[in-house]
């Protein structure tokens, strides 16, 4: 039962890759890639979780209360910002591709180059 959280991360990653493989639109592909990356949030937070523990913010709780892992949370925080930056950069590239080739269908782009 408890592996469910890890399985969720695997599912989110694989469904994102499936979207990437079958995509017909670069913008759609970029969004699928960000879904892939969101699987890492789920995995990291699942590893850091602890039954019965509260959030690692010590205001209004006892100073020796059990808390979930703050280290993985700091990592996920970085992950979220990186995801936004990567997505924005890739979308900018997609816009440039469209300016040059007037299409953002990866298959048609391939046929342009032979």
């Amino acid at each position, binding site marked *: *039962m*408890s592996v*469910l*959280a890890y399985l*969720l991360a695997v*599912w*989110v990653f694989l*469904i*994102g890759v*499936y*979207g990437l493989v079958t995509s*017909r*639109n670069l*913008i*759609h592909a*970029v*969004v*699928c890639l*960000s*879904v892939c990356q*969101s*699987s890492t*949030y*789920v995995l990291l*937070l*699942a590893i*850091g*979780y602890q039954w019965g*523990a*509260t*959030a*690692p*913010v010590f205001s209004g709780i006892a100073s020796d209360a059990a*808390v*979930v892992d703050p280290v993985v*949370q700091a990592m*996920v*925080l970085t992950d*979220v*910002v990186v*995801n*936004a930056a990567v*997505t*924005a950069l890739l*979308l900018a590239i*997609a*816009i440039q591709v*469209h*300016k040059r080739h*007037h299409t*953002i269908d990866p298959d048609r782009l391939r046929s342009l180059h032979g």
Partner: protein
Amino acid sequence: MTALMIVTFILVAGGAAAVVFTREPLRQAVTLSAYGLVLSLLFVVLQAPDVALSQLAVGTAVVPLIVVLAIAKTRARKRQ
């Protein structure tokens, strides 16, 4: 495993699939925003309010907005 946790797991699994299977990019921006909201719900359940706040701001507002603007740019050229 609490019922709340299972419900959020199912929501996230379904949300990810919904984003991928929405082939029309403009509609996908909306499902992406909803998926971001569901993810931040999961983070709250997993006792990570810091991450939930971050995901709420980035995943439901900034990224979908940029996606919509990118679509607007590529559409505007198609019409001409």
